[in-house]
């Protein structure tokens, strides 16, 4: 899609930067500040970030929420993957749906796959640069993905694109196994047995658009 040509204003955004290297953190903060980010919060490791996010989850007020997390992979105590899993498992919608950018020098396939399957939104392979950071911000803002809740996964849709597929259909699930829901009206799925429980959605909102479901199920072929 062509650009609107309009410049984004980031002064209303609040970003949590998590890295145990103070100098790296200060560079990251300098970059974000220069890009116009309104508020930056620092945490030295995953454990400290969890405390910050817990406070944010309890606070009720406009402008006090954290909008995006940038976190290093290698940290102690609690590394980036542990923090990401904690975020995605959090009971508050304010936390578990947060865009999460994992920063790592180890960007081989296994590391990226681990982050992806833990629910990462974007992966920023080091070295850090202004353009790297800016492009992840734009991607989060302009190309948000729906969230998927499955028995063994909760996070942004791991497929970034739908490609034509002519091969054998190997789907395990059909349209009746997939439900498309709107913001906040989702149920909880028990990760142990894969069955839904504690539905929180009003009955009328549980109706699904069959085309959307078919499309969603269709996309599973490429998973």
């Amino acid at each position, binding site marked *: 899609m062509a*650009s609107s040509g309009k410049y*984004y204003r980031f002064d209303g*955004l609040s970003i949590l930067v998590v890295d145990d290297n103070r100098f790296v953190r200060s560079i990251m903060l300098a970059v974000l500040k*220069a*890009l116009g980010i309104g508020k930056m919060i620092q945490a030295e490791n995953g454990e400290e970030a969890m405390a910050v996010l817990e406070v944010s989850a309890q606070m009720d007020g406009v402008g006090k929420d954290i909008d995006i997390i940038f976190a290093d992979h290698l940290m102690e105590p609690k590394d980036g993957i542990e923090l990401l899993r904690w975020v995605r498992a959090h009971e508050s919608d304010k936390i578990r749906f947060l865009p999460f950018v994992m920063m790592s020098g180890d960007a081989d396939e296994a590391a990226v796959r681990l982050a992806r399957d833990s629910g990462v939104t974007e992966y920023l392979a080091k070295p850090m640069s202004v353009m790297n950071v800016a492009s992840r911000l734009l991607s989060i803002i*302009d190309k*948000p993905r729906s969230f998927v809740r499955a028995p063994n996964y909760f996070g942004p849709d791991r497929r970034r694109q739908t490609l034509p597929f002519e091969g054998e259909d190997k789907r395990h699930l*059909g349209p009746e196994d997939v*439900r498309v829901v709107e*913001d906040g009206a989702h149920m909880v799925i028990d990760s142990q047995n894969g069955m839904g429980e504690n539905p929180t959605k009003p009955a009328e909102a549980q109706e699904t658009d069959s085309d959307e479901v078919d499309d969603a199920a269709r996309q599973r072929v490429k998973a």
Partner: protein
Amino acid sequence: MNGGAMNDNVKPGPGQQPLVEIIHRPNKLREKVGGTADGKPGRIDPAAIMRATAHIARLSDAHEAQTKLDLTELQEIYRRALAEPQNRPVHLKRIVKISDGILTLGKTFGYDLLSDFAHALNHFLIPLAEPNTAQMQVVGLHIDAMQVLVRENIKGDGGSIGQALNSSLSMARTKLGAKRG
């Protein structure tokens, strides 16, 4: 299972909820940054990009000082890893962490080869459960090479000296690295 058939083990029974939810969320971030209603992507002001780049450039001296500190610590931890085999895993973990910091910012400040050496060191070290003496020497060679790059202020691809170092380290890693796959 083929042809779109269902897996009976996971298929929900009558009255049970679907296995998978696809949750659509309103794009509040886009609203927050002033995105247009037509959904077209916006841009980042080039002046902000230049400002951020200039900010980083001003931190060049601080980066050099920090890297020297990092390399001194790297050398010390390496010495301890050699002297205390029983604590080697802890020391090597620290080496990976310090090296990761060097990797992160090297290219940002024009030390491309420094970043490459730090990355290569970690790539070599991480798969090694218990490095032997020869493999520990390869670790030391990488630290020494990084010291040379910073001491001589060798930036970019390092020119002939840098490439010679790169080639030697690459051969050492190939010869003594963990077998992958």
